[in-house]
């Protein structure tokens, strides 16, 4: 056994919570009638396993780690999808409209000189 430090209260809570998803799936399956059981049983089991995991975290640590990995995998994809949506809804139309209005952010066009007056120093307290 590895001699990992004792889990903190927050970690124990999360370990307990990581036991919930299978019962959540079970509850869903029962409700849909895929499994001929009373869905209320799964519903009741959820807080029970949460408390169980909280009180006895050690054996569930590997499972918790696996759930955490899966969660971050799903989270990354979710963020990617959300940001793609932001791009479609905001960036694309704004970009196209600004271009139609003749705004060029990156290309100054051919000129005799590309020097621009320097930005005057702003307050150090501001992030801009």
């Amino acid at each position, binding site marked *: 056994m590895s001699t990992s430090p004792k889990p903190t209260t*927050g970690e124990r*809570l*999360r370990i*307990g*919570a*990581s036991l*919930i*998803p299978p019962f*959540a799936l079970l509850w869903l399956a029962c409700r849909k009638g895929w499994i001929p059981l009373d869905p209320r049983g799964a519903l009741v089991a*959820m807080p029970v396993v*949460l408390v169980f995991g909280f009180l006895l975290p050690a054996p569930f640590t590997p499972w918790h780690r696996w*759930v955490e990995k899966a*969660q971050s995998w*799903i*989270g990354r994809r*979710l*963020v990617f999808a*959300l*940001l793609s949506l*932001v791009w479609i809804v*905001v*960036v694309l139309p*704004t970009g196209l409209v*600004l271009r139609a209005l003749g705004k060029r952010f990156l290309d100054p066009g051919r000129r005799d000189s590309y020097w621009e007056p320097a930005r005057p120093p702003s307050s150090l307290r*501001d*992030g*801009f």
Partner: protein
Amino acid sequence: MIRLLQEFLRFLRQEKKWWLVPLVVILLLLGLAILFSSSSAVAPFLYPFL
């Protein structure tokens, strides 16, 4: 995050970059949501939904 949004809006007003306002507001709200969902206090209860 709210302080950052305020600072950002101050910047956009100073620079008159109005076209960035919707994008910045949406992104910072999204950032807030991501932050909220990953902060330790609520993360356990979001497990079943992720």
